């Protein structure tokens, strides 16, 4: 059954990341550095403005997601590990879902650390923490389906390291805008705004997940 296979691939990804947490460490380092530079260079007053803090946080998350996803697939290409999956019955169908699940979990950890750092370094006073958590979850859910899709499509290309950000970031703009607005709304206490943007983020996540599950198995040939 495909769901079970998706979980197996996600578990394997978690094992690999536990053995060599380079994707996680790179993503955390990137997000933490950006937030630190933001707090020092822009100054706590300007950096703590909800739209500014939210925008920089989600830009950092997008790049961190690209970094972690690219690293995950680079690992698959070492020793042709990905071929072993693609040649298995159901492996092709489960690969996309498994990667999305694993990277969502990894990004959730990165978002947690990044969110705490933002809160402390930028002295953010969060009016609606529950709503903020919802926006963060929806925002994190929306990133891997898009990025894994483009990394998979560019998998066999030599220039994939350059191509993935070029292809994925423009597509992510609406999501990043929604995540930024939703986060800012939760910080200032606009519950309706936060929930509205959360709904939109979940819709993005669903659309791209369905798209990825549909086209990636064919694209992987």
């Amino acid at each position, binding site marked *: 059954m495909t769901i079970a296979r998706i979980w197996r691939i996600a578990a394997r990804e978690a*094992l690999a990341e536990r*053995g060599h947490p380079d994707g996680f460490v790179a993503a955390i380092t990137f997000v933490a550095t950006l937030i630190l530079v933001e707090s020092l260079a822009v100054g706590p007053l300007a950096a703590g403005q909800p739209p500014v803090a939210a925008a920089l946080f989600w830009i950092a998350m997008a790049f961190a997601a690209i970094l972690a996803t690219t690293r995950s697939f680079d*690992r698959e290409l*070492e020793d042709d590990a990905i*071929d*072993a999956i693609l040649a298995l019955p159901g492996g092709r169908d489960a690969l996309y879902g498994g990667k999305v699940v694993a990277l969502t979990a990894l990004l959730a950890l990165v978002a947690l650390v990044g969110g705490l750092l933002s809160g402390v370094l930028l002295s953010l006073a969060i009016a609606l923490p529950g709503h903020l958590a919802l926006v963060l979850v929806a925002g994190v859910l929306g990133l891997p389906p898009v990025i894994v899709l483009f990394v998979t499509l560019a998998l066999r290309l030599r220039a994939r390291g350059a191509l993935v950000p070029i292809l994925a970031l423009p597509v992510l703009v609406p999501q990043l805008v929604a995540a930024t607005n939703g986060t800012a709304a939760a910080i200032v206490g606009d519950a309706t705004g936060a929930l509205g943007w959360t709904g939109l983020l979940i819709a993005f996540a669903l659309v791209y997940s369905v798209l990825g599950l549909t086209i990636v198995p064919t694209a992987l*040939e």
Partner: protein
Amino acid sequence: MNSTAALRGVTVVLGDRAILRGFDLEIAPGVTVVRGPNGAGKSTLLRALAGLIPLSRGTRVVPERTLYLGERPGLLHGVSARDNLRFLASFRGVSPDAVGPALASWGLTARDADRPVETLSAGQRRRAALSRIDIERCDLVLLDEPFAEIDDAAATRLMQKIRVLAGERRAVVIATHGRPELDASANRVVHLS
């Protein structure tokens, strides 16, 4: 002929070059050896059979239980050989308990089996990959240069294993430059040019 697998009228184009053109191959139970110079398309033929590259034309017929072992071991770095093989076995519905004895029979100690694969030697990684033959027990086994990187003991074991598979009426396709003695026991030797 009672075929286990077949390629019929297959054309494979990689980049701007047709590697296989209108190629037909019927694979019967037993051993099929594929030979040819570098660049003749031996690996492409095996990858086509494994469904790893698209066919520009023609059809591929392979059993559900097909095992492909490529030129590289296909094991994920950062994960132990044991966990890699357990993961791959789970896709075939094979019990994870089969992994330990198989790795041991290919000469990997329990300690080596639990080390991340990138810390093993190339020969140990190859032996770990070859143990998939015992674990997954497939009807069609595709081996691309399986004797590369392994020592004499492992090569002898692999030759024995190939004979056992042929005796069990399974089909084994081997792409290799070496081991001329394989040809004597093969059902068929395919020469690509």
